[in-house]
């Protein structure tokens, strides 16, 4: 398999993740989509790394995994907090902060 195959898969993963973030109102799913995006990024890094014969990309992938975990930890904590108060994790329930339109 060539570099293009890997990159295509990476782009597919990334795009699916993005679409998930934009479309899914369930916060947990949105967060899973972000993980998907980051996995796409990882794949892209590793593929390039292998192709270039440069280990930096693989190193980057490790760091991204770690940061994704950290982000998920913080995100889930916040979601739990909101679930306790609201009893739901639908993102459209959280629209109190917004511009008030007066004309």
């Amino acid at each position, binding site marked *: 398999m060539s570099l293009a195959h890997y990159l295509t898969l990476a782009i597919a993963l990334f795009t699916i993740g993005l679409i998930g973030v*934009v479309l899914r109102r369930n916060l947990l799913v949105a967060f899973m989509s972000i993980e998907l995006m980051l996995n796409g990024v990882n794949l892209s890094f590793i593929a390039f790394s292998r192709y270039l014969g440069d280990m930096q990309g693989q190193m980057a992938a490790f760091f991204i995994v770690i940061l994704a975990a950290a982000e998920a930890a913080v995100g889930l904590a916040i979601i739990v907090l909101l679930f306790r108060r609201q009893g739901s994790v639908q993102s*459209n329930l959280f*629209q109190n902060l*917004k*511009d008030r339109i007066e004309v």
Partner: protein
Amino acid sequence: MTLAWIILLPLLGAIINGYHAMSCTLRKQKVITGMVNFVGVGLPFIAFLIALSQGIPFILGAEEPLRETLFSWITVGNLHIEAGLCLDRLSTLMILIITGVGTLIHLYSIGYMKCDPGYAKYFAYLNLFLTSMLILVLADNLVLMFLGWEGVGLCSYLLIGFWFEDKAKAQAGKKAFIVNRIGDVGFLLAIFGLGVLLLPGISEGASIFNFEYIESKMSLIAPSTIFWMSSPIILTLLLFVGATGKSAQIPLYVWLPDAMAGPTPVSALIHAATMVTAGVYMIARLDFLFDAAPATLNVIAIIGASTALFASLIAIVQNDIKKVLAYSTVSQLGYMFLAMGVGAYAYGVFHLMTHAFFKACLFLGSGSVIHAMSGEQDIRKMGGLKKALPITSMTFLIATITIAGLPPFAAFFSKDHILWKTYSHGHTVLWVMGLLAAFGTAFYMFRLYFLTFTGKSRVSEEAKAHLHESPFNMTFALVVLAVLSAVAGFLGLPEVLGGHDWIKHWLNLGAGSAKAHSAHDHAMELILMGVSVAVAACAILLAFLLYRNGLEGPERRARAMQPIHNLLTNKFYVDEIYDAIIVRPIRSLSQSVFFRVVDQKLINEVFVNGSGKVLSWLGSCVSRIQNGFVNRYAFYFLLAVSVFLGIWVIN
């Protein structure tokens, strides 16, 4: 830092009193008078002491200017302007006048402004004025000087309109501000012009508008041209436009008589002793530049002499005690410019100093009279006040004799120097004008004196009950100033009378002023001196004959000369002429075109309301996007990235 302290102390006073005034107004509390007095008068006094301590070496003969570079102010590319102060003999004289007379007038104000609701505000403004004026005279470069120049203009505006509830007074403030703006444009253009000339060849780190630097580059400026005209002439003419605004010369003098709407001590400090002389100071400061522009000097001399004569004629028929003094100030400033114009810079500055003393004394005296008369300013309703106001009338008389030019009082020496220089420069016509102005001066001043202090009392019964001599702090200032105006002239005792003409040698201004043809024609000088004394004496005698018994006689005679009298009472119709040829056309044009069409239709409806509507519609569109829904936010992020990518790839 010593020089900086002279400026900072009044500034501190302005800040403290200003804050106090503001918090008192907002919380509707009473002003703590003692604190205001202490700060408002004490700090300028300390500044005066510092100025004295710094100035004494110069008075004793030091020549090397004292420079203080405070900080590097503006640095953009190769434009470099430093905030620097410079004390030399000229600025020593100025700061001593400003802080000295300033302190006296602050002291006087304690009595004059007592019970005024804006007491703290008044002192804050007055202190701020001192700060600006000191910046103006201590600045070592044009830009800093301009800062002070604008600062004094602002304070002048604030103080003229001090009682802004009275619409006429507020408008007088506006008039002063706007007329000064016209002059300031000239000043600014001159600064820009200098920048354009000097900036291309500037060396690294040189402060471009520094007076010393400009002087060192005169060889570069003198042969250059701006718009096909010699640049020194253009620059000095522009600067002179600035000076006519600030120093109330023809054609921009119209604001000064109206400026009398402010409290009288303000008139004394700002509109007689200090601010209005800023133009004279500026020319003296830039003497090297003006020396290179003889054409400008002639213009200045002509304008100065005309102003002196013109204003003294108007002053003859004024009936408001302060208006007389206002026109007198315009006239005396004309003398100073005449001196500048004939290259006698030192005598112009000398007259500036003596004028500061006697005119401040006259204004404060008139303030004392107005105070005693419970606000009455019309001299037709005064008369015989000598008994009630002994100290005021005495000091007023001394100052009146001084301004009339009788020896050995100060103005005799300073004015006579100017007239002699004018004559010896060959400007005979200007000399005659100056002499006529001197006649007018002596006449209107003694008219003022006789009508106010001697003869039968025409004071209303109501006012009579309140007549009183002013308190000590007011009379103290009067006495000091009267003494100064009597003796200050000896600083410039001419050589022909056995003196050394100390002030001229000390100031040492204008390399070209010591021209050969002013070579000593002692006999002629003495003759001219005699002539001017005789003229003054005649004028005084005439005033005595006409006005010793009040107004009835002269008014009958005035009716005989109705046309001339009318012309004079209406101040040569200058305000009306300006109104007809400048104000009214602009106003009607504004009414018909600018207001109805441009403002109402175009600006108001199309631009303001239209753009407002469009923008608030756009705003609400964007606000609608900001609807708090986080998935939507992520979508817009994605959209934006895609749009940018699209645009860029297409490009």
